[in-house]
C-alpha cells in the first residue's frame, strides 16, 4: 500500500523531523506539481525544500505523473486545483491513501471515499510501530505545536495518544 502526499504534509513532517523515517519505511508518491510546490523556496535555503529534494533524488519519495482526464473530472466536480487536485487525482486513480493537512483536500477525499491521514496520524503510527520512540514522537508533536499549524485541541488529542 502506497501513500500519496500533498505539499502541506511533506513540509510539516520535515518540520517535525519525521519525514526521513517516514519515507524510509513507506512507499511515498507525490505528483509533479506537488514537487514543484515543495521545492519552491530551496533557493532561499529552506530546510524542508532541500530535504524533500534530497529524498526525491534518493528515491525515498517518488514522483508520479497522472492522467489529465481524471484531473479534469475531479477539478470540474470539486473546484480544486494545483497540488491538492493532483494529489486527489493520483490517489483516486491508484486507490491509495492521501496524506494531507489541508481541509479542502480532506473534504474532497471524503467526498470521493478516499482514505486519508494527516501528519499527526503519521507520527503516532510511527511511534506505535516502534519506528520512533515515545520521546521522539512527543518532540515531533511539540515542534508542530510550536509551528502553529494545528489548533490546541488537535495537538492535545494527539499528545494523549503518546501517553
Amino acid at each position, binding site marked *: 500500500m502506497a501513500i500519496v502526499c500533498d*505539499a502541506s504534509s511533506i513540509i510539516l513532517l520535515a518540520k517535525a523531523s519525521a519525514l526521513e523515517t517516514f519515507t524510509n519505511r513507506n512507499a511515498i508518491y507525490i505528483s509533479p506539481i506537488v514537487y514543484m510546490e515543495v521545492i*519552491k523556496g530551496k533557493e532561499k535555503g529552506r530546510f524542508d525544500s532541500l530535504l524533500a529534494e534530497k529524498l526525491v533524488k534518493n528515491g525515498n519519495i517518488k514522483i508520479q505523473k497522472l492522467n489529465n482526464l481524471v484531473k479534469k473530472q475531479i477539478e470540474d466536480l470539486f473546484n480544486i486545483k494545483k*497540488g491538492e487536485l493532483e494529489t486527489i487525482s493520483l490517489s483516486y486513480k491508484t486507490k491509495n*491513501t492521501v496524506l494531507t493537512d489541508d*481541509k479542502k*483536500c480532506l473534504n474532497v477525499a471524503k467526498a470521493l471515499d478516499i482514505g486519508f491521514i494527516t501528519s499527526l496520524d503519521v507520527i503516532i503510527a510511527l511511534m506505535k510501530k516502534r519506528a520512533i520512540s515515545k520521546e521522539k514522537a512527543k518532540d515531533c508533536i511539540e515542534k508542530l505545536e510550536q509551528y502553529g499549524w*494545528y489548533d490546541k485541541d488537535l495537538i492535545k488529542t494527539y499528545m494523549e495518544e503518546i501517553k
Partner: protein
Amino acid sequence: MMKNISIRLQEDFMKEAEKLAKFETTDKSMIIREALERGLAEIKLEAAIDGFVKEKLSISEAADMAGLGVGEIMDELTKRGIKQKFTITDIRGSLKTSLKIVK
C-alpha cells in the same frame, strides 16, 4: 518585457517618489515601478490569506495566488496566528487508517 501604462497618482505620492529618487540617485519611474511591484505582491498575499481563511482556497491554491511556495505561505499564515481549520471531528478515523497503512 515591459509595457507602458498611464496612471494618475496623488501629488503627495509623486513628491515622495521624487524625494526618494533624489536620495537614491535614481530616476522617479524606477521608484514608482518598485513601489507598484511590491504593492502588488502584498495585495496578492493578502488575497491569498483571505481566501484560505474563508476556506475558498486550499493551501496550494493560496500559495499560487501569492506567488509563493507552499512552505512560504504556511509560514506567512502561522506568523499571523492563522491555523488550519480542520478539527478532530473532521478527521475522525484517520488515526485508525494510519495505524493500518503506515509501517
